[in-house]
């Protein structure tokens, strides 16, 4: 290694630049530490904060790396510019290696990686259960369908659709899978994903695999379930809710589910469409149906056809069940569901509809014109 002149390799200007970069880095690192992530995205499960802290660790050390790389780029590019008064063929320093420097910038990142790996390794069991965790927790099933979530609770005869109710503070194991919709791969189950951003938990729902994850919610509230694995035309609209409740509210909800199931099983009454309220139906439509249907003419499909002008267009195509578009035939589809060519129309239980809801929806559809 040859020195060009007797002046130090790194002079005062260099260290001034380093000082500026150090101050900016320190500010960013402080920001990473104090940033209230919870304010932007609630940390609603016991694994949320550990995962956020891993992200903070990466950002904490990433910030100075980013600042120093960009800072030195800027500083060197400006300070060592070829100046107009220098000869055109002037060359720079011939120093082309420095073992100490190169070793340093190999060893320090390696140490950071080791630390990150160890810290990450300790967080994994918090949401991927060990055998003891599985044995001690309540187990639910989460099943992905096109394009909704089905949840099965122990002791509940009927599944709950799209709304995962959980009591606060209780560890649960969720067995995550995808539905066996039909034996034909052409129309059968696909991969979905169960992602609750506020929980920081994501598990793909893979046909043929049952993958347990472990969650303990620790904030009361309503959080989103987002499908993050492309699953077909309804993927953009596949989302659900996690409702974390106090133990008392959860027990009440649980008991209600059993009561409703018993009532439905006790006697199947034909749906009466009289007394359906269109405005109530509109609220339901906007909450549940817009995922797959447009309030627009038939041709404007989402997953299913548009539902405007269902009953007053004499040329309206037949319904997916092959019957003409009449209020009672539409009510049949709402009650029993149907298989379309691009997705499955869930039945009334799957959609969480009562008989009154069906009547309200049909009443609304009778008023829906484009």
């Amino acid at each position, binding site marked *: 290694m040859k020195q060009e002149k007797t002046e130090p390799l790194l002079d005062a200007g260099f260290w001034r630049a380093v000082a500026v970069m150090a101050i900016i880095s320190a500010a960013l690192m402080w920001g990473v530490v104090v940033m209230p992530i919870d304010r932007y995205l609630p940390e609603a499960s016991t694994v949320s904060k550990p995962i956020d802290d891993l992200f903070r660790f990466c950002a904490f050390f990433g910030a100075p790396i980013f600042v120093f790389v960009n800072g030195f780029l800027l500083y060197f590019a400006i300070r060592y510019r070829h100046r107009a008064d220098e000869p055109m063929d002037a060359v720079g320093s011939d120093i082309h290696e420095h073992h100490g420097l190169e070793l340093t910038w190999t060893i320090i990142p390696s140490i950071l990686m080791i630390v990150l790996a160890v810290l990450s390794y300790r967080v994994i069991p918090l949401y991927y259960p060990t055998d003891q965790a599985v044995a001690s927790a309540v187990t639910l099933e989460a099943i992905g369908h096109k394009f909704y979530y089905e949840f099965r609770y122990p002791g509940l005869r009927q599944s709950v659709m799209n709304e995962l109710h959980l009591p606060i503070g209780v560890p649960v194991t969720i067995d995550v899978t995808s539905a066996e919709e039909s034996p034909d791969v052409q129309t059968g189950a696909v991969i979905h*994903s169960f992602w609750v951003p506020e929980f920081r938990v994501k598990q793909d729902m893979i046909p043929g695999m049952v993958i347990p994850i472990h969650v303990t919610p620790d904030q009361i509230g309503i959080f989103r379930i987002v499908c993050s694995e492309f699953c077909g035309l309804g993927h953009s609209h596949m989302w659900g809710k996690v409702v974390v409740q106090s133990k008392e509210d959860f027990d009440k909800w649980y008991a209600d589910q059993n009561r409703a199931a018993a009532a439905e099983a006790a006697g199947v009454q034909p749906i009466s469409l009289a007394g359906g309220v269109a405005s109530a139906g509109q609220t339901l439509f906007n909450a549940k149906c817009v995922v797959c249907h447009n309030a627009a003419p038939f041709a404007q499909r989402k997953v299913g056809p548009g539902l405007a002008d269902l009953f007053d267009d004499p040329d309206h195509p037949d319904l997916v069940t092959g019957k003409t578009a009449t209020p009672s035939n539409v009510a049949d589809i709402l009650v029993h569901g149907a298989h379309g060519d691009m997705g499955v129309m869930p039945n009334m239980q799957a959609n969480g509809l009562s008989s009154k809801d069906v009547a309200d929806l049909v009443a609304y559809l009778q008023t829906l014109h484009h």
Partner: protein
Amino acid sequence: MSISELEQHPASHIHPPPDTFIKKYVFSLDHKVIAVQYFVTAGLFLVFAGLLAELMRVQLMGPNNHVLSTAVFDEAYSLHGTAMVWLVGIPLVTGAFGNLIMPVQIGARDVAFPWLNMLSFWMLPVAGILVFSSLLFGAPQAGWTEYPPVSLQLPLGASLSLWCAGVFVIGVSSTITGLNFLVTIIKMRAPGMTYTRMPLFVWATGVTAFLSMIATANLSAALAGLFIQHVFGVPLYDVGRGGAPVLWQHVFWFYSHPAVYILILPAFGIVSEVIPTFVRRPIFGYKAIAYSSAAIGLLSFMVWAHHMFTSGLQHWEQLFFMILTMVIAVPTGIKIFSWVTTLWRGKVRLDSPLLFVLGFLSTFTLGGITGVMLASVPADAQEHASYFVVAHIHYVLFGGTIFGIFAGLYYWWPKMTGRMLDERLGKWHFWIMYLAFNLTFLPMHWVGLLGMPRRVATYDPVFAGTNMFVSISSFVLAASILIFIINAWRSARQGEPAGPNPWGARTLEWMIPSPMPYYNFRDIPIVLSGPYDYGKPLPYANISQDLAMVPVH
């Protein structure tokens, strides 16, 4: 060298020039003409794929937009990714830049197998036609990764077969090019050019060639599997009959992870060439950069399942891939630090090629940092398949590969065409592209972490403001490419003629006329040392020192 010595050394034999139009410009065996063919064809696909992205961004300007139907939107991002990886990125960095520069930098007259080289090129337009013709039948909609079972369902019919066939064809092209380049580098270096005297672009191309040759075969196998399931019903991915969807993910990513290193290593090579030229000083850490390229090449085969952390891997698998992914970050960091240090005490000329390199260093560093965030299995639980990943991939593929490609284009344009590009237009192009790029992709990290998934035609309205901002920035980004197109057009018509060495560089391509004669070198050069020792005489025994030129400005 005497005539008899020339005759004894087979590489010194010069063939007569090609004489017909077809032999000169259509079915050319000349690596430099083939390179131009790659540039033009892949450039065309770049425009198509970029327009598809802009269509997507129009749809995503607001939630519940009806600019594109969901099906067409899904086709758009699937073809955008497919084209950018296989019809634009890989062909440009290997077929275009590798062909144009590598043989000349090692002092050869052409590649080892010129006829195979020509065949490799012609597979590109065939693959492009196959892939884009799927639009006529309803293109595939499950992303460039086409995970079964959903990829086998959407849409029905010919399009998945066309996609499989098209990607298979470009895969064969890539494999052949890899073989060709590797043999060329091993067997055809000029006398005296040991491996540690090779330019770093040749190192990069060599490792890339190794990856292309070995990894791509796995893609071909995966595609064949998808095809035989789709057409003949062989139940590879069908759970009901003993198959497994995750099988596709393993085989696909076993190739596609090395593929992203195929995309970036040549760009690293371009950076390693441009910096010494525009700071007139040796690259810092030549051996570290050379050997870390080889390390990255080997390690790239051991990290694939970091794309599958949420796919039900065993705990030990998650641990293994997490650790190796973190390991591969270290040699990458070494390169970045070495490149930045090369600027120290240089004589820096902020011309367009160097500006794009600085832009690369700035953006790729952030992409590398977000890559480490993705490497941690629990952190990935939040980030996977969200817009955070979309941001990461564009920081490394656009900020990395595309900025590297532009750096190389501005650098080697005079060598390829014999004309200079307009430096002022180059600076406008760089600054608008760099700023618009960051404004487009930086906000995506944020909405991804807050819960916006990938591959969606609509989103939670809470993300509307950010998406509108991103879309508008992306329009500016797309427009900035027009500046380059205008620059190229004007250069072709009235650009300042370039001599052999307008930048005052020292690698062998600058020792011959611009544009390069079909035989490259009248006499095969004899190499005495490495190429980056600015201030010392040129390290070639039989090349005039007059070619150690000063930069033109």
